[in-house]
């Protein structure tokens, strides 16, 4: 492979007719003749289908016969066919990065099918651009790394434990790190789970028992993360117990399942001011302890501290169903108690939750819609009662309700220490403070950083069933590299010229993968296996000390100038 570096480029251009897809619009023979005139092109031919086995053998033949060390195929988009042609080059001993594609179908013949002459001219230009790059490309190597077959799960709530169990059952070692003295997370504080009304403790105890009896799982409670170094397959985490005892863990993958806090609405609706204004979380405890009183009327207020104009703008997703569930439970225990739910929008999404909503209506729970701009007010009245004034949006008038208990539905929020963890792991938090996935639709439980995954309410507010689904998802995602054991990583990575680097640190801050650090000499150093090759560092480096493999400034500039007809021998 090294030999290509020293040799003058000998480029072969293979122009595909793609049946009539290209050939029916672009004058392919003319384009082939043009390609032959380009610098360093020693051979050009046309194929009916370059991607057919016949076409591929023509490439191999050409490489042997004309001693080609660069191959350009002018056909369709590299997004689909580049891997095939690269493999063909590799089979013939030409490094796969010495291949370049000219997209004359999607970007030319298909788009300009009514202008064949202009399409032919454009096809020539596209091939010229590809040749300009092909003259400058170099062979590349994809680094290979081994993957340690064990996982670190941060957080021992229902999400973390579910993920850990699934991985352990697949045969991987799992370390669960829980900051509290016991496993269980938020579920420990809940009474019953909607919509099945199963006891939260029943569900939880089953999982805890399974985790504790699994030989592949090691649980450390009262333990937090102090430092994380490394990359996919080779992470090294330092963990510390409350008593100061520290340990190092070597793992291949990391799962973030740190859960969420529940917002405390201090200063809102008389919370902490009047003893009988409580949160849904406190109501769960009363239900759990069987401490309901013979209340005449209970009033719940939704969206307390969520869906705000600024700050917590998000919907916390679980509060509508939580309020409905607790309202139904109160009704079951105290049939004579009136339960009001004051809501902005009742979001009982999906089939089962909507059915639950209807059931709650049938049980006589009363609903009042309020407006964000006219929120209810709570004032203390005589004999320990509370007076709630609310603008009834459907009646269009102010109503006053007197009650014994006001329950505030508050959102899940990110933990205060999430920021620290996000820095340790070099993974981002979104504007709402929750952990931010790699792609909202296509990679919803991956982080952009390879080998790190997220599930449960650390990612966004969600209920138990949703957390469990995500946990099973991350277990399967994390299992892939550990099952494969050996990974090939990106060859298109950043290179630092140490002589030019001034150590300003701009790239260190900009790299979304934490792949760049300053070394002992104070210059930037790229951990290749962590680099994804986006090139943001190179395009921003104040000293122009960073270049991108396979997309160098020289190559891109040559392409741009070739697009303008400037390609000199």
């Amino acid at each position, binding site marked *: 492979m090294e030999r290509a570096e020293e040799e003058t480029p000998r480029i072969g251009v293979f122009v595909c007719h793609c049946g009539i897809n290209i050939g029916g619009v672009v004058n392919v023979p003319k384009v082939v003749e043009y390609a032959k005139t380009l610098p360093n092109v020693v051979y050009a031919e046309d194929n009916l289908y370059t991607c057919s086995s016949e076409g591929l053998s023509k490439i191999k033949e050409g490489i042997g016969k004309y001693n080609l060390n660069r191959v350009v195929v002018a056909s369709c988009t590299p997004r689909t066919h580049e891997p095939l042609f690269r493999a063909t080059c590799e089979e013939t001993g030409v490094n796969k990065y010495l291949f370049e594609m000219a997209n004359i179908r999607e970007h030319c013949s298909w788009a300009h099918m009514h202008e064949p002459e202009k399409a032919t001219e454009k096809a020539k230009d596209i091939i010229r651009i590809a040749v300009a790059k092909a003259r400058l490309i170099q062979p590349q190597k994809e680094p290979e790394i081994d993957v340690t077959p064990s996982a670190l799960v941060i957080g021992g709530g229902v999400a973390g434990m579910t993920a850990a169990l699934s991985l352990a059952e697949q045969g991987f070692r799992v370390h669960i790190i829980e900051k509290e003295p016991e496993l269980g997370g938020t579920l420990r504080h809940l009474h019953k789970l909607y919509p099945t009304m199963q006891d939260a403790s029943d569900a939880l105890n089953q999982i805890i028992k399974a985790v504790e009896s699994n030989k592949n799982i090691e649980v450390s409670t009262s333990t937090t993360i102090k430092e994380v170094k490394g990359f996919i397959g080779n992470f090294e985490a330092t963990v510390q117990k409350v008593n100061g005892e520290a340990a190092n863990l070597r793992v291949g993958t990391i799962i973030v399942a740190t859960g969420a806090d529940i917002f405390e609405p201090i200063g809102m609706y008389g919370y902490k001011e009047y003893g009988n204004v409580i949160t849904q979380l406190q109501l769960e405890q009363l239900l759990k302890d069987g401490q309901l009183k013979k209340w005449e009327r209970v009033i719940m207020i939704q969206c307390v501290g969520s869906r705000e104009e600024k700050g917590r703008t998000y919907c916390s997703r679980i509060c509508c169903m939580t309020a409905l569930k607790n309202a139904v439970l109160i009704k079951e225990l105290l049939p004579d108690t009136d339960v009001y739910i004051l809501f902005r929008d009742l979001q009982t999404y999906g089939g089962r939750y909507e059915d639950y909503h209807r059931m709650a209506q049938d049980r006589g729970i009363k609903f009042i819609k309020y407006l964000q701009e006219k929120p209810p007010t709570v004032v203390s009245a005589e004999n320990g009662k509370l007076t709630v004034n609310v603008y009834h949006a459907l009646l269009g008038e102010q109503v006053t309700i007197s009650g014994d208990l006001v329950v505030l539905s508050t959102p899940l929020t990110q933990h205060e220490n999430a920021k620290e963890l996000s820095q340790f792991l070099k993974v981002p938090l979104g504007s709402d403070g929750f952990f931010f996935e790699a792609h909202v639709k296509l990679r919803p439980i991956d982080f952009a950083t390879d080998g790190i995954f997220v599930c449960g309410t650390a990612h966004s507010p969600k209920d138990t069933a949703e957390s469990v689904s995500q946990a099973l998802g991350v277990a399967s995602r994390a299992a892939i590299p550990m099952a494969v054991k050996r990974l090939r990583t990106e060859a298109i990575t950043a290179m630092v010229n140490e002589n030019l680097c001034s150590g300003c640190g701009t790239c260190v801050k*900009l790299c*979304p993968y934490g792949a760049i650090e300053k070394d002992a000499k104070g210059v930037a150093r790229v951990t290749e296996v962590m680099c994804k090759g986006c090139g943001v560092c190179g395009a921003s480096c104040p000293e122009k000390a960073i270049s991108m493999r396979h997309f160098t400034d020289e190559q891109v500039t040559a392409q*741009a100038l070739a697009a303008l007809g400037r390609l000199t021998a």
Partner: protein
Amino acid sequence: MTFEPRIVGFLCNWCSYAGADLAGVSRISYPPNIRIIRLMCSGRLDPVIILETLAGGADGVIVMGCHPGDCHYVEGNLQAERKIRMLKKLIARTGLEPERLRLEWVSASEGGRFAELVKDFTSQLKKLGQSPLAEEKPDTKILAGVLAAKATAADFRLRVLVGKEKGLIEDANVYGEKVPEEELDKTMEEAIDAEYLRNRIYLMTKDEPLSVKELSKRLDLDPKAVLRHIVVMRRRGLVAIDRVEGTTPFYTALKVE
């Protein structure tokens, strides 16, 4: 023959390039004026390359990336946006129309939007006319400006400002102070002005030694301002006195490693 603008498009691999593919797959036609160069990320595009392309005679340059929040590399597209914002200010000083540079977001599913943008940019450039740098004899004054801009975009100061912009606004500097966006904008404007003029002076004095008076005439700038730049440039080792005629010193550019 009517004027057909030559457009160079720099498209990110994941969203915009796929969007352009989809336009083809859907057989949506658009003017054949664009030549597409595929990059992994719009954030990879060095401002110097854009200026080189404009200096090379492109009538228009369009950079396309993923929509904010959709970037394959988290927020490379937002870095591209910062660079283009700076570049447009820089280009405006050269005499070339900054509208010749555009940044647009195109997702992989927006074949129609891609085609519309190419159509729109082509007709916009037709109205604007051929680039003064695309002609056989390019406008020397504007070319000098664009080359100075290119040198400016390659210099440490602007690159560091653009590279650290996000950090300064969102996090804080080493003293723990967040920099308000307006303040940073002002600093940026000042830096663009100063560095651009210094590069103009550098390139002019590279051709021939010049006096402050002559420089001020050619740059249409107050002699005092020119002198201030000369002082900075002498300190940075960029220019030196070539000779003195009467009492007038003539400055010449020094070679920089």
